[in-house]
């Protein structure tokens, strides 16, 4: 369950940063990404997958959230 710092980059894409692992990746897709619901599975550009408990609003980026690691992509 790593803490992940999420922010939007200049192109409006989600940037994923895990301080403990020095992992800095752009998210390719977010399962639920609408004003009413946000979260679910997030696929990163290096192929790894993380899961966020869906919430009922867009988080106010940048923000730190807990994620579950699903697939390391290796």
């Amino acid at each position: 369950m790593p803490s992940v710092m999420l922010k939007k980059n200049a192109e409006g894409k989600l940037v994923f940063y895990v301080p403990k692992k020095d992992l800095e990746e752009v998210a390719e897709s977010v399962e639920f990404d609408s004003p009413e619901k946000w979260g679910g599975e997030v696929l990163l550009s290096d192929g790894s997958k993380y899961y966020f408990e869906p919430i009922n609003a867009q988080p106010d980026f940048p923000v730190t959230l807990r994620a579950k690691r699903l697939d390391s992509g290796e």
Partner: protein
Amino acid sequence: MAALTREETEALIQEVLEVYPEQARKDRAKHLAVNDQSLEKSNKCITSNRKSQPGVMTIRGCAYAGSKGVVWGPIKDMIHISHGPVGCGQYSRAGRRNYYVGTTGVNTFGTMNFTSDFQEKDIVFGGDKKLAKIMLEIEELFPLHKGISIQSECPIGLIGDDIEAVAKKANKEIGKPVVPVRCEGFRGVSQSLGHHIANDAIRDWVLENRDGDESFPTTPYDVAVIGDYNIGGDAWASRTLLEEMGLRVVAQWSGDGTIAEMEKTPKVKLNLIHCYRSMNYIARHMEEKYKIPWIEYNFFGPTKIAESLRKIAALFDETIQAGAERVIAKYQAEYDAVIAKYKPRLQGKRVMLYVGGLRPRHVIGAYEDLGMEVVGTGYEFGHNDDYDRTIKEMGNATLIYDDVTGYEFEEFVKKVQPDLIGSGIKEKYIFQKMGIPFRQMHSWDYSGPYHGYDGFAIFARDMDMTLNNPCWKQVKVPWKTDESTKVAVAASA
């Protein structure tokens, strides 16, 4: 000597690794790589931020060095107590040349060493009482100090002193910030964790001090310079450029910085990060908590300076963008003259670097502006994200080494035969005795500043002065030079 091809570089790494026992070889192999610009991510080719192998000569420092020496030390109006035995503070005192303005011992304390000088009895009975007394003494002897930080040395963590409690009590008694920093040297694998711990201490004990206090008048052009330690005056050379383009520099972290500046930083509009490795933590925290965006910039060499000034200006309005162009145009004649003077003398020379924090990638642009080529680079304590940023800066098939050992570095140098090496003081005399020009790139070899346009002129002069120094022709004994062997051969024939 011509540049090595990819195969030759790989063979060189294998050759160097051969002397290690199997286990060590396997581990060290992960830290040495041939640069491949096509890679997006460094973790495909190099491993970093791992514990050094026992038995090798590493060049790394400790967490205390990262906190006291790098992040906290330069904050000039605070007193930083090296809490523990006297050596850690005394042997690192004033070595980093973080310049500052002020009267030392009266209102600034940068080059002084304050220590609790632990004795056996303090280890046995605990040092908390001594620490409390020291702080009252400091308040009496140096009433103009603006705060105290307690920089833990190894024994503090080992004997379990409660410095946080002492700090809180002292804070009430003297009415100034007292910051306990848990940066015992044994934490982590290098000074890098010390930077992180120091950043976290600033976050927890300093940054919130002025939350809710709106008395500080702000402007839309407020910025903070973060991760510039004013080595030889670097931060000043950077600051003038930013101010000339119309920005207002509210805080310098932490070279020539004060605690008041740090407390005001949450009010700025943009954080400018120079040393990403040591201060990205606090920038990310401010981004999340105060919604202050941050960008990295690079003030080494005119190409990178112009690039950075434009990148910074793009985040502001037209007046600042015009200001950036004005600054670049203003200094153009100056840096063109520097290049015209030194490039012919330095063209085509090859450089190997091995430094810390930001320089292994940031100075590459400055060398390229002088027509030089960086053929090998590496970080003492970099992480993956540093190497991600380095891959694109370096040429293809160049060497990259992480936490290089004394042996590996020497062997690489023998094979690559660079014209100049930039590294630290511990490496300096080894390579000079090998007859290779050397610059100490941690504190600019007692020179500087190297940042900004003013710094570039000094950088170019220093590189020329070192590389083209006539002394290098005298390194070989007369009977072993090419000419004398020719004469000897002729005489024997």
